[in-house]
């Protein structure tokens, strides 16, 4: 189960409001390559994963992604809290505002609400780990695009941190893939009907 640690993984203190930027960054909150999707994907896949190393990795990276979700939500909120009606309109933020006010809502930069259709939990451990490696690359690329969209160091700092975590997560999932491949090579000679044992 989960406990809550009352601090961010990385500090976020944004001095300059920017609703247009918030509308982009929200994609890592509820978009197709964002942290909510990552957390749900890994925490769902862990139930059917094989080998202790891979189970622990899915559990713990999924948990870290919840902390990243919190960071992205924090960035979005700090970019929009206290905005005046005029700042909302001039920032092109009115469509979001009329649906969600100055709240944080899980959606993509294009306004598509969060969907599990963007993720898979398929049960075959090689498939799931390969999906996860792709997910980490997608997140890394998205953070790179977002970093290009701003010059604000208060925002770039946490975005670069989050991008680096994707690279590390890719490495860990890659290592799990090798571990699971070796395990399955020992356990079966031909393709099984189901991968049953632990």
């Amino acid at each position, binding site marked *: 189960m989960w406990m809550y640690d009352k*601090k961010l993984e990385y500090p976020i*203190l944004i001095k300059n409001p920017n609703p247009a930027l918030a509308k982009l960054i929200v994609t890592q909150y509820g978009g197709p390559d964002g942290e909510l999707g990552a957390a749900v994907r890994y925490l769902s896949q862990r139930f059917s994963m094989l080998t*202790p190393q891979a189970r622990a990795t899915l559990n713990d990276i999924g948990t870290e992604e919840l902390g990243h979700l919190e960071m992205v939500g*924090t960035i979005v909120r700090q970019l929009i809290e206290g905005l005046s009606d005029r700042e909302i309109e001039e920032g092109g933020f009115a469509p979001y505002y009329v649906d969600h006010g100055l709240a944080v809502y899980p959606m993509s930069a294009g306004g598509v609400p969060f969907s599990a259709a963007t993720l898979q939990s398929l049960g075959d451990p090689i498939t799931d780990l390969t999906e996860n490696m792709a997910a980490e690359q997608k997140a890394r690329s998205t953070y790179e695009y977002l970093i290009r969209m701003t010059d604000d160091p208060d925002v770039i*700092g946490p975005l670069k941190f989050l991008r680096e975590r994707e690279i590390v997560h890719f490495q860990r999932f890659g290592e799990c893939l090798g571990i699971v491949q070796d395990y399955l090579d020992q356990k079966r000679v031909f393709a099984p009907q189901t991968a049953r044992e632990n």
Partner: protein
Amino acid sequence: MTEQELLQKIMELDFYIIDLHLYLNTHPEDADAIGMYNDAVLQNRDLRAEYTQKYGMLTSNHCVSAVPWQWIDSPWPWQKAANFELREENV
């Protein structure tokens, strides 16, 4: 140490612990890394105990509270007052 300096130290150790933790999940035989991890955890425990005693509860379920109930105190982690600038020059 100020509250902010103490919180930064805890954040640094927490993160170091997290990254070592993920490494150990795929490298369970690395005894030296386990030693580094354990040292960091013990150091972090002391800092967290100090933080809780001076400034308030950091984790649900593991920290004691004064009266009135401290857990609901502001600021919460997403609020600006709970944060600070982390720059490499400050390190």
